[in-house]
């Protein structure tokens, strides 16, 4: 098994090198056959990497503890379902996983490349293959998943207990796919620069891949938050941990990018912005992968003992240097012909959008990097944690949400102040009404008040658009409301998909505001039969039980929850001890409702029959989990291909807009 695995890796290395050389040389020397050959080599790579992954899976399934990676991440007692998690649980396996995913994405990207980017495709292929070459090369030289031990131990170590949670079946693979996926639009951008032909064709492929990768990255982040919330036991979902920041950092320029390419597609401006944003996103993505493998700052997420971070840092530096060199070389090609018409326009709003996302990235990076600066200049290690990010990044995020509400209401090119005021009247009214209502009901703190009002503003704007559009369709076609709405969405998928995603973001902001400012927690020490009260809830300790397992010991407490005096449900918070890892994983008892979560942790079971409980009441958390699938739906709608319609000339559309606008 190990031989098969290593052999396929060597084969992959050869094929990737061949594909890069054939494409590059073929393009340079104008030998079309070589270019085609290079492309076919790219297509074979997912198959080769697939065999590699299959070999590792087979090794796990057959308990081949002669392979160091298998011994380190599984044992005889391993639940077969967990083989999937064990695949990427460690450094070497995750590298193989990333390389496999990337080989698939690269092959699909090259295969499905639209006609407009064909001239630049060989260059793109070179970049894609060089990236793959790096990962396969690192595996073969430093982190071979098929490395064999001198003597096979009788049993493996087992998988890290924190990974046995359902969230771990999805979060790491999705997150890793998202991070490496940024390489695809990046490669297209580099291909476009290398080919040197001015034009905006690469925007089509940039938009499609950008949206797909963005959705995957967002999914990774939300899944990670869900995992942290349900298993880490502190009742929170985001800790501004360096590795979490490493995953957030690429998401920020990526979000700016998918918006900014819309402007390039429509107006042919922001070319430099878009190239710079995708380079930054890729740089951050590689930085994220570096942080996970032995970065200088400790984190709950890192693969721990690996010392190979430096090679990723070098790769990062090489990529950034090459990318910016290309950018500088092709600077003139990227200059925009048509500048802005007015500071009050959608283009300007997108410009502000870009700036805000970059600012958030900057302050996040600053927070991550500052401890190193302090160490270097003061010789003192400091921590830059939640208080910093809450104070500094919070307002920027709020500004972004507000912009998300106002931006889509701005017309392209130029907005008249009067029209804008009229369009904003309803959303502003809703926001003010919400603020007033909340104030009267007892929400006095200014920041949550502002945040909720902004959420109201954005939601009002979106829902009004939907209501208007549906009503207009109905008046024309007489369809029922649901059908009219469905057809409305189908008729303009990018726009309505975008609205759906924005609505999901509002839910996310709503959830974060509620849970950040109004979460309460209290510790109680209870005897069996005793009750504790928090808010309108009471928790009664019913008793504890112990469940021994082959490699673990589970202790659970049964509690009865009362709301307003009436019993409502039971929860079973507890702990699972893993002696082999000397680690305990919390199992919180969680009950979610749209209003709040009741979150109970049983932290200590003492010999005299008492147990210590920490009870959290976390408002609005469920909305965060609802927003995830909704964002996915929105992205799918936005990407759903439309029937080929008559291509209307853009100029005609612009003339019409301008004529209508100038009526005001």
């Amino acid at each position, binding site marked *: 098994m190990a031989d098969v695995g290593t052999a396929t890796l060597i084969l992959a290395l050869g094929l990737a090198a061949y594909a890069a050389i054939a494409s590059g040389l073929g393009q340079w020397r104008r030998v079309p056959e070589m270019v085609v050959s290079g492309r076919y080599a790219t297509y074979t790579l997912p198959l080769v990497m697939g065999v590699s992954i299959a070999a590792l899976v087979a090794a796990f399934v057959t308990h081949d503890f002669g392979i160091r990676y298998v011994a380190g991440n599984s044992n005889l007692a391993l639940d077969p379902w967990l083989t999937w998690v064990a695949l990427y649980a460690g450094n070497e396996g995750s590298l193989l996983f990333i390389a496999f995913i990337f080989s698939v994405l690269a092959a699909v990207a090259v295969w499905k490349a639209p006609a407009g980017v064909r001239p630049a495709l060989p260059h793109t292929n070179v970049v894609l293959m060089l990236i793959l070459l790096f990962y396969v090369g690192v595996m073969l030289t430093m982190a071979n998943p098929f490395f064999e031990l001198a003597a096979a131990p009788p049993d493996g170590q087992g998988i890290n207990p924190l990974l046995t949670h359902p969230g771990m079946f999805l979060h790491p693979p999705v997150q890793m796919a998202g991070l490496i996926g940024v390489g695809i639009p990046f490669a297209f951008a580099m291909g476009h620069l290398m080919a040197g032909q001015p034009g905006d064709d690469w925007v089509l492929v940039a938009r499609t891949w950008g949206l797909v990768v963005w959705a995957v990255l967002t999914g990774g982040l939300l899944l990670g938050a869900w995992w942290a919330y349900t298993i*880490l036991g*502190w009742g929170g979902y985001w800790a501004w*941990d360096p590795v979490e920041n490493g995953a957030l950092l690429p998401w920020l320029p990526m979000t700016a990018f998918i918006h900014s390419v819309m402007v390039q597609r429509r107006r042919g401006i922001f070319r430099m912005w878009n190239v710079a944003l995708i380079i930054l996103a890729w740089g951050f993505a590689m930085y994220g992968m570096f942080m996970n493998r032995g970065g200088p700052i400790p*984190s709950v997420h890192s693969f721990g003992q690996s010392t190979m971070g430096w090679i990723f840092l070098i790769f990062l530096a090489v990529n950034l240097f090459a990318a910016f060199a290309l950018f500088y070389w092709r600077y003139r090609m990227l200059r925009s012909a048509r*500048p802005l*018409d*007015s*500071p009050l326009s959608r283009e300007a709003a997108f410009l502000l959008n870009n*700036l805000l996302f970059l*600012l958030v990235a900057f*302050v996040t990076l600053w927070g991550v990097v500052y401890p190193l600066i*302090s160490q270097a200049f*003061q010789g003192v*290690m*400091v*921590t*830059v*944690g*939640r*208080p910093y990010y809450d104070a*500094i990044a919070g307002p*920027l995020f709020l500004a972004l949400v507000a912009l998300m509400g106002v931006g*889509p209401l701005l*017309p392209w090119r130029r*907005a*008249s102040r009067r*029209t804008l005021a009229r369009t904003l009247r*309803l959303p502003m009214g*809703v926001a003010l009404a*919400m603020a007033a209502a*909340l104030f009267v*009901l007892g*929400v006095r703190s200014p920041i949550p008040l502002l945040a*909720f009002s902004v959420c109201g503003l954005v939601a*009002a704007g979106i829902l*009004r*658009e939907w209501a*208007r559009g549906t009503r*207009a369709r109905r008046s*024309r076609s007489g369809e029922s409301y649901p059908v009219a709405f469905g057809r409305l969405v189908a*008729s*303009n998928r*990018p*726009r309505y998909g975008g609205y759906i995603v924005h609505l999901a973001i509002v839910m996310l902001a709503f959830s974060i505001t509620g849970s950040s*400012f*109004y979460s309460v927690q209290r510790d109680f020490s209870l005897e069996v039969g005793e009750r504790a009260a*928090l*808010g309108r809830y009471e928790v009664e300790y019913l008793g504890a039980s112990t469940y021994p397992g082959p490699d673990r010991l589970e202790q659970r407490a049964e509690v009865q929850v009362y709301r307003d005096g009436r019993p409502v449900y039971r929860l079973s918070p507890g702990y699972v001890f893993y002696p082999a890892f000397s680690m305990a994983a919390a199992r919180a008892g969680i009950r979610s409702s749209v*209003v*709040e979560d009741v979150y109970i942790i049983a932290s200590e079971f003492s010999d005299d029959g008492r147990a210590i409980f920490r009870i959290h*009441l976390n*408002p*609005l958390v469920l909305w965060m989990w609802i927003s995830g699938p909704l964002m996915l739906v929105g992205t799918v709608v936005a990407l759903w291909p439309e029937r080929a319609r008559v291509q*209307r000339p853009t100029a*005609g*559309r612009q003339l*019409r807009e301008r*004529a209508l606008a*100038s*009526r005001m």
Partner: protein
Amino acid sequence: MNLVRNVATRRRGSLALVVLAALLAWSSCASVAPQSSLERRAQALDRGLICPICPGESLDQSQVALAKQMQGVVREMLADGRTEMEIEDFFVERYGQAVLAAPRKEGFNLIVWVVPPVGALGGLTVLLLVVRAMVRGRRGQEGIMSPDAPESDAGLARYLEIVDRETGAAADVGGPPDGSGEARGGSANG
């Protein structure tokens, strides 16, 4: 008549939404009786202190015994009447500055807090200047070719007619056709 009724329905609809959202937000946020201020201060301190042996977890996040002990010490000291500053200093003395979740706003560490707002202001200023330069450049380009409003409505109607014919606008089924009332920008692609 229809228009008035529509407006009224719309207003009622939005009002209902406002009330619903506000109730949801309020019911989740105001449902808990205020805790003792001592406990609240203790929890704030828990969030502001980092467990020394855990990788970057604050006291309220960490599950290890040391963190629980430290939480106990915090509560004891608060009950004794110590201030937040004194308690923080106590831990800094023992574990170093890294035990604070964020650096104090003094001395060298002031730059952590100052650089982001300064950067933000700088960025916004640059953006404003760039936008202004772009717009001025645009105005310079225009010269004779003024794209602004044609004089009469009749002229405009004829103009629109030509545009409609050329662009096959009869096939236009997308976006809010309400666009005649507002300059909403293009119907497709947001």
